[in-house]
Protein backbone atom coordinates (compact mmCIF):
# COMPACT_ATOMS: atom_id res chain seq x y z
CA UNK A 1 0.00 0.00 0.00
CA UNK A 2 1.30 3.44 -0.89
CA UNK A 3 1.83 6.18 1.65
CA UNK A 4 -0.36 9.28 1.46
CA UNK A 5 2.58 11.22 0.01
CA UNK A 6 3.07 8.66 -2.74
CA UNK A 7 -0.64 8.71 -3.52
CA UNK A 8 -0.54 12.49 -3.85
CA UNK A 9 2.43 12.23 -6.23
CA UNK A 10 0.63 9.63 -8.34
CA UNK A 11 -2.58 11.66 -8.56
CA UNK A 12 -0.58 14.81 -9.34
CA UNK A 13 1.09 12.99 -12.23
CA UNK A 14 -2.32 12.10 -13.67
CA UNK A 15 -3.50 15.70 -13.26
CA UNK A 16 -0.30 16.95 -14.89
CA UNK A 17 -0.63 14.53 -17.82
CA UNK A 18 -4.27 15.41 -18.41
CA UNK A 19 -3.66 19.16 -18.25
CA UNK A 20 -0.65 18.87 -20.54
CA UNK A 21 -2.84 17.34 -23.27
CA UNK A 22 -5.48 20.05 -22.80
CA UNK A 23 -3.24 23.12 -22.56
CA UNK A 24 -0.46 22.22 -25.00
CA UNK A 25 -2.13 23.39 -28.25
CA UNK A 26 -2.98 26.73 -26.64
CA UNK A 27 0.58 27.18 -25.36
CA UNK A 28 2.17 26.29 -28.70
CA UNK A 29 -0.23 28.44 -30.73
CA UNK A 30 -1.01 31.49 -28.56
CA UNK A 31 -4.00 33.67 -29.45
CA UNK A 32 -1.82 36.71 -30.22
CA UNK A 33 0.11 35.07 -33.05
CA UNK A 34 -1.32 33.78 -36.29
CA UNK A 35 -1.81 30.01 -36.22
CA UNK A 36 0.00 28.14 -39.04
CA UNK A 37 -2.25 27.36 -42.03
CA UNK A 38 -1.77 23.62 -41.55
CA UNK A 39 -2.99 23.75 -37.96
CA UNK A 40 -5.95 25.92 -38.99
CA UNK A 41 -6.79 23.28 -41.60
CA UNK A 42 -6.61 20.52 -38.97
CA UNK A 43 -8.85 22.58 -36.71
CA UNK A 44 -11.46 22.61 -39.47
CA UNK A 45 -11.37 18.96 -40.52
CA UNK A 46 -10.44 17.17 -37.28
CA UNK A 47 -13.73 17.57 -35.36
CA UNK A 48 -15.82 15.52 -37.82
CA UNK A 49 -13.21 12.74 -37.71
CA UNK A 50 -12.91 12.94 -33.92
CA UNK A 51 -16.68 12.59 -33.45
CA UNK A 52 -16.50 9.45 -35.57
CA UNK A 53 -13.67 8.19 -33.37
CA UNK A 54 -15.68 8.93 -30.20
CA UNK A 55 -18.69 6.99 -31.49
CA UNK A 56 -16.48 3.97 -32.16
CA UNK A 57 -14.81 4.47 -28.77
CA UNK A 58 -18.22 4.17 -27.07
CA UNK A 59 -18.98 0.97 -28.98
CA UNK A 60 -15.52 -0.58 -28.64
CA UNK A 61 -16.45 -3.24 -26.08
CA UNK A 62 -19.12 -4.90 -28.21
CA UNK A 63 -18.25 -8.47 -29.08
CA UNK A 64 -19.86 -9.51 -32.33
CA UNK A 65 -19.27 -13.21 -31.80
CA UNK A 66 -20.50 -13.71 -28.26
CA UNK A 67 -23.14 -12.49 -25.81
CA UNK A 68 -25.80 -10.42 -27.55
CA UNK A 69 -23.62 -9.90 -30.67
CA UNK A 70 -24.03 -6.13 -30.51
CA UNK A 71 -27.67 -6.39 -31.57
CA UNK A 72 -29.09 -4.13 -28.80
CA UNK A 73 -26.44 -1.52 -29.61
CA UNK A 74 -27.23 -1.69 -33.33
CA UNK A 75 -30.99 -1.37 -32.80
CA UNK A 76 -30.58 1.51 -30.36
CA UNK A 77 -28.09 3.43 -32.51
CA UNK A 78 -30.39 3.07 -35.53
CA UNK A 79 -33.28 4.34 -33.39
CA UNK A 80 -31.20 7.36 -32.30
CA UNK A 81 -30.41 8.13 -35.95
CA UNK A 82 -34.05 7.79 -37.07
CA UNK A 83 -35.39 9.86 -34.18
CA UNK A 84 -32.82 12.54 -34.87
CA UNK A 85 -33.57 12.66 -38.59
CA UNK A 86 -37.26 12.89 -37.79
CA UNK A 87 -37.42 15.44 -34.95
CA UNK A 88 -33.85 16.76 -34.74
CA UNK A 89 -34.32 17.28 -31.01
CA UNK A 90 -31.18 16.23 -29.19
CA UNK A 91 -32.93 15.22 -25.95
CA UNK A 92 -35.63 13.16 -27.65
CA UNK A 93 -33.08 11.25 -29.75
CA UNK A 94 -30.81 10.53 -26.79
CA UNK A 95 -33.59 9.62 -24.33
CA UNK A 96 -35.35 7.41 -26.90
CA UNK A 97 -32.18 5.50 -27.74
CA UNK A 98 -31.17 5.07 -24.11
CA UNK A 99 -34.59 3.84 -22.93
CA UNK A 100 -34.68 1.43 -25.87
CA UNK A 101 -31.23 0.10 -24.98
CA UNK A 102 -32.06 -0.31 -21.29
CA UNK A 103 -35.24 -2.21 -22.10
CA UNK A 104 -33.39 -4.44 -24.56
CA UNK A 105 -30.54 -5.40 -22.23
CA UNK A 106 -32.74 -5.77 -19.16
CA UNK A 107 -35.73 -7.57 -20.63
CA UNK A 108 -34.84 -9.12 -23.97
CA UNK A 109 -31.16 -10.06 -24.11
Amino acid at each position, binding site marked *: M*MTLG*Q*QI*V*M*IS*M*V*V*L*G*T*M*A*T*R*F*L*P*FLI*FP*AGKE*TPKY*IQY*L*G*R*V*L*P*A*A*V*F*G*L*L*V*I*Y*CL*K*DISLFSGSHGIP*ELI*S*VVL*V*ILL*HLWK*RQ*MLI*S*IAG*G*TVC*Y*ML*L*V*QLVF
Partner: protein
Amino acid sequence: MQEKFVVIRRAFAAAFPYTIPIFAGFWFLGLTYGIYMNVSGFCFWYPMLMSLTIFAGSVEFITVSLLLGAFHPLQALAMTLMINARHLFYGISMLDRFKGTGWKKFYLIFGMCDESFSINYTAEIPKGVDKSWFMFFVTLLNHFYWVTGAVLGGIFGSLISFNTEGLSFVMTAMFVVIFMEQWLKEKRHESALIGLGLSVLCLVIFGAENFMIPSMVAILVVLTAFRRPLDRQQDTEAEQGGEVKR
Protein backbone atom coordinates in the same frame (compact mmCIF):
# COMPACT_ATOMS: atom_id res chain seq x y z
CA MET B 1 -24.33 45.22 -12.90
CA GLN B 2 -27.96 44.46 -13.70
CA GLU B 3 -27.07 44.05 -17.37
CA LYS B 4 -24.23 41.69 -16.64
CA PHE B 5 -26.54 39.55 -14.53
CA VAL B 6 -28.97 39.31 -17.45
CA VAL B 7 -26.14 38.22 -19.78
CA ILE B 8 -25.03 35.53 -17.35
CA ARG B 9 -28.55 34.27 -16.69
CA ARG B 10 -29.35 34.11 -20.38
CA ALA B 11 -26.19 32.11 -21.09
CA PHE B 12 -27.02 29.71 -18.27
CA ALA B 13 -30.55 29.20 -19.58
CA ALA B 14 -29.20 28.50 -23.08
CA ALA B 15 -26.47 26.14 -21.86
CA PHE B 16 -28.44 24.04 -19.38
CA PRO B 17 -30.64 22.04 -21.83
CA TYR B 18 -27.53 20.92 -23.74
CA THR B 19 -26.11 19.41 -20.57
CA ILE B 20 -29.16 17.36 -19.51
CA PRO B 21 -28.02 14.14 -21.24
CA ILE B 22 -24.62 14.63 -19.66
CA PHE B 23 -26.26 15.00 -16.29
CA ALA B 24 -27.74 11.52 -16.74
CA GLY B 25 -24.54 10.05 -18.12
CA PHE B 26 -22.15 11.65 -15.64
CA TRP B 27 -24.25 10.84 -12.63
CA PHE B 28 -24.35 7.24 -13.74
CA LEU B 29 -20.63 7.06 -14.55
CA GLY B 30 -19.67 9.23 -11.57
CA LEU B 31 -21.70 7.03 -9.22
CA THR B 32 -20.07 3.96 -10.71
CA TYR B 33 -16.67 5.53 -10.25
CA GLY B 34 -17.41 6.51 -6.65
CA ILE B 35 -18.66 3.01 -5.88
CA TYR B 36 -15.59 1.50 -7.52
CA MET B 37 -13.29 3.63 -5.34
CA ASN B 38 -15.42 2.81 -2.32
CA VAL B 39 -15.14 -0.94 -2.78
CA SER B 40 -11.42 -0.54 -3.58
CA GLY B 41 -10.98 0.81 -0.06
CA PHE B 42 -10.82 4.59 -0.61
CA CYS B 43 -13.05 6.97 1.34
CA PHE B 44 -15.12 9.57 -0.53
CA TRP B 45 -12.42 12.25 -0.28
CA TYR B 46 -10.51 10.45 -3.00
CA PRO B 47 -13.20 10.39 -5.70
CA MET B 48 -14.16 13.93 -4.73
CA LEU B 49 -10.70 15.45 -5.11
CA MET B 50 -9.78 13.32 -8.10
CA SER B 51 -12.95 14.10 -10.05
CA LEU B 52 -12.45 17.77 -9.21
CA THR B 53 -8.80 17.99 -10.30
CA ILE B 54 -8.46 15.36 -13.04
CA PHE B 55 -11.93 15.60 -14.63
CA ALA B 56 -11.28 12.98 -17.31
CA GLY B 57 -13.41 9.89 -16.82
CA SER B 58 -11.47 7.01 -18.30
CA VAL B 59 -8.18 8.05 -16.72
CA GLU B 60 -9.79 8.35 -13.29
CA PHE B 61 -10.90 4.74 -13.41
CA ILE B 62 -7.39 3.70 -14.33
CA THR B 63 -5.90 5.82 -11.54
CA VAL B 64 -7.70 3.61 -9.03
CA SER B 65 -5.73 0.58 -10.19
CA LEU B 66 -2.55 2.66 -10.37
CA LEU B 67 -3.04 3.66 -6.72
CA LEU B 68 -3.47 0.02 -5.75
CA GLY B 69 -0.32 -1.03 -7.62
CA ALA B 70 3.34 -0.16 -7.20
CA PHE B 71 4.66 3.41 -6.98
CA HIS B 72 5.63 4.32 -10.56
CA PRO B 73 4.90 8.03 -11.07
CA LEU B 74 6.50 8.29 -14.52
CA GLN B 75 4.53 5.33 -15.76
CA ALA B 76 1.37 7.03 -14.48
CA LEU B 77 2.31 10.18 -16.38
CA ALA B 78 3.07 8.32 -19.63
CA MET B 79 -0.14 6.35 -19.42
CA THR B 80 -2.20 9.50 -18.84
CA LEU B 81 -0.58 11.26 -21.79
CA MET B 82 -1.44 8.34 -24.06
CA ILE B 83 -5.03 7.93 -22.95
CA ASN B 84 -5.72 11.65 -23.09
CA ALA B 85 -3.81 12.40 -26.27
CA ARG B 86 -7.13 13.01 -28.05
CA HIS B 87 -7.42 16.28 -26.10
CA LEU B 88 -4.68 17.62 -28.37
CA PHE B 89 -7.16 17.35 -31.24
CA TYR B 90 -9.80 19.18 -29.21
CA GLY B 91 -7.39 21.98 -28.40
CA ILE B 92 -6.42 22.44 -32.05
CA SER B 93 -10.12 22.61 -32.98
CA MET B 94 -10.88 25.12 -30.23
CA LEU B 95 -7.97 27.54 -30.80
CA ASP B 96 -10.29 29.99 -32.54
CA ARG B 97 -13.43 29.47 -30.50
CA PHE B 98 -11.74 30.12 -27.17
CA LYS B 99 -10.25 33.40 -28.43
CA GLY B 100 -11.50 36.45 -26.55
CA THR B 101 -13.03 34.52 -23.68
CA GLY B 102 -10.87 36.35 -21.13
CA TRP B 103 -10.30 34.80 -17.71
CA LYS B 104 -12.76 32.03 -18.54
CA LYS B 105 -10.33 30.62 -21.08
CA PHE B 106 -8.22 28.93 -18.41
CA TYR B 107 -11.23 27.10 -17.00
CA LEU B 108 -12.59 26.25 -20.47
CA ILE B 109 -9.31 24.52 -21.32
CA PHE B 110 -9.02 22.89 -17.88
CA GLY B 111 -12.52 21.43 -18.18
CA MET B 112 -12.35 20.38 -21.83
CA CYS B 113 -13.48 16.76 -21.47
CA ASP B 114 -14.99 14.83 -24.42
CA GLU B 115 -18.49 16.01 -23.60
CA SER B 116 -17.71 19.68 -22.98
CA PHE B 117 -15.68 19.84 -26.16
CA SER B 118 -18.36 18.15 -28.24
CA ILE B 119 -21.13 20.45 -27.05
CA ASN B 120 -19.09 23.63 -27.18
CA TYR B 121 -17.95 22.78 -30.69
CA THR B 122 -21.32 21.82 -32.20
CA ALA B 123 -23.95 23.76 -30.21
CA GLU B 124 -25.73 26.50 -32.11
CA ILE B 125 -25.47 29.30 -29.61
CA PRO B 126 -28.60 31.47 -30.04
CA LYS B 127 -28.21 35.11 -31.06
CA GLY B 128 -27.94 37.44 -28.11
CA VAL B 129 -26.33 34.81 -25.89
CA ASP B 130 -22.76 35.48 -24.81
CA LYS B 131 -20.55 32.78 -26.31
CA SER B 132 -17.93 32.68 -23.58
CA TRP B 133 -20.48 32.48 -20.75
CA PHE B 134 -22.37 29.78 -22.65
CA MET B 135 -19.25 27.62 -22.97
CA PHE B 136 -18.32 28.41 -19.38
CA PHE B 137 -21.64 27.10 -18.06
CA VAL B 138 -21.56 23.98 -20.25
CA THR B 139 -18.14 23.18 -18.78
CA LEU B 140 -19.07 24.12 -15.22
CA LEU B 141 -22.32 22.12 -15.22
CA ASN B 142 -20.56 19.05 -16.62
CA HIS B 143 -17.84 19.38 -14.02
CA PHE B 144 -20.48 19.77 -11.29
CA TYR B 145 -22.39 16.64 -12.41
CA TRP B 146 -19.22 14.59 -12.50
CA VAL B 147 -17.98 15.62 -9.05
CA THR B 148 -21.38 15.26 -7.34
CA GLY B 149 -21.90 11.86 -8.97
CA ALA B 150 -18.48 10.65 -7.80
CA VAL B 151 -19.03 11.93 -4.26
CA LEU B 152 -22.51 10.42 -3.97
CA GLY B 153 -21.16 7.13 -5.30
CA GLY B 154 -18.31 7.27 -2.79
CA ILE B 155 -20.69 7.84 0.14
CA PHE B 156 -23.91 6.00 -0.71
CA GLY B 157 -22.68 3.68 -3.44
CA SER B 158 -23.49 0.43 -1.71
CA LEU B 159 -27.10 1.47 -1.01
CA ILE B 160 -28.26 1.91 -4.61
CA SER B 161 -30.47 -0.93 -5.75
CA PHE B 162 -32.64 0.03 -8.76
CA ASN B 163 -31.70 -1.52 -12.07
CA THR B 164 -29.48 0.90 -13.98
CA GLU B 165 -28.12 -1.64 -16.44
CA GLY B 166 -27.68 -0.03 -19.83
CA LEU B 167 -27.94 3.57 -18.63
CA SER B 168 -24.40 4.27 -19.74
CA PHE B 169 -25.69 4.06 -23.31
CA VAL B 170 -26.76 7.68 -22.83
CA MET B 171 -23.16 8.69 -23.67
CA THR B 172 -23.08 6.60 -26.84
CA ALA B 173 -26.42 8.08 -27.91
CA MET B 174 -25.10 11.57 -27.27
CA PHE B 175 -22.00 11.09 -29.38
CA VAL B 176 -24.09 9.59 -32.19
CA VAL B 177 -26.28 12.72 -32.11
CA ILE B 178 -23.26 15.00 -32.06
CA PHE B 179 -21.71 13.11 -34.96
CA MET B 180 -24.99 13.54 -36.89
CA GLU B 181 -25.22 17.25 -36.09
CA GLN B 182 -21.73 17.74 -37.50
CA TRP B 183 -22.66 15.58 -40.52
CA LEU B 184 -25.85 17.54 -41.26
CA LYS B 185 -23.98 20.82 -40.96
CA GLU B 186 -21.19 19.89 -43.39
CA LYS B 187 -21.52 19.71 -47.15
CA ARG B 188 -18.76 17.18 -47.50
CA HIS B 189 -18.35 14.08 -45.38
CA GLU B 190 -14.84 12.82 -46.18
CA SER B 191 -13.44 13.75 -42.79
CA ALA B 192 -16.34 12.15 -40.86
CA LEU B 193 -16.01 8.97 -42.93
CA ILE B 194 -12.23 8.95 -42.50
CA GLY B 195 -12.71 9.17 -38.73
CA LEU B 196 -15.28 6.39 -38.61
CA GLY B 197 -13.53 4.11 -41.07
CA LEU B 198 -10.03 4.35 -39.67
CA SER B 199 -11.30 3.93 -36.09
CA VAL B 200 -13.15 0.73 -37.01
CA LEU B 201 -10.10 -0.51 -38.92
CA CYS B 202 -7.77 0.16 -35.98
CA LEU B 203 -10.25 -1.38 -33.55
CA VAL B 204 -10.24 -4.59 -35.59
CA ILE B 205 -6.45 -4.64 -35.88
CA PHE B 206 -5.35 -3.44 -32.43
CA GLY B 207 -8.30 -4.37 -30.22
CA ALA B 208 -10.41 -2.34 -27.79
CA GLU B 209 -7.58 -1.60 -25.34
CA ASN B 210 -5.04 -0.23 -27.78
CA PHE B 211 -6.81 1.27 -30.76
CA MET B 212 -7.05 4.95 -29.79
CA ILE B 213 -3.47 6.05 -30.50
CA PRO B 214 -3.16 4.17 -33.83
CA SER B 215 -6.53 5.61 -34.86
CA MET B 216 -5.43 9.15 -34.08
CA VAL B 217 -2.14 8.72 -35.93
CA ALA B 218 -3.95 7.21 -38.92
CA ILE B 219 -6.52 10.05 -38.98
CA LEU B 220 -3.76 12.65 -38.82
CA VAL B 221 -1.74 10.98 -41.60
CA VAL B 222 -4.71 10.61 -43.95
CA LEU B 223 -6.03 14.13 -43.33
CA THR B 224 -2.54 15.48 -43.96
CA ALA B 225 -2.04 13.42 -47.11
CA PHE B 226 -5.35 14.61 -48.56
CA ARG B 227 -4.98 18.18 -47.39
CA ARG B 228 -5.05 19.66 -50.86
CA PRO B 229 -8.34 18.25 -52.15
CA LEU B 230 -10.02 18.53 -48.74
CA ASP B 231 -8.83 22.05 -48.04
CA ARG B 232 -9.44 23.54 -51.50
CA GLN B 233 -13.10 22.60 -51.40
CA GLN B 234 -13.50 24.10 -47.93
CA ASP B 235 -11.87 27.34 -49.05
CA THR B 236 -14.19 27.79 -52.01
CA GLU B 237 -17.14 27.05 -49.75
CA ALA B 238 -15.98 29.71 -47.33
CA GLU B 239 -15.63 32.21 -50.16
CA GLN B 240 -19.05 31.42 -51.52
CA GLY B 241 -20.51 31.78 -48.05
CA GLY B 242 -18.86 35.17 -47.76
CA GLU B 243 -20.32 36.32 -51.08
CA VAL B 244 -23.81 35.34 -50.11
CA LYS B 245 -23.54 37.36 -46.93
CA ARG B 246 -22.35 40.43 -48.79
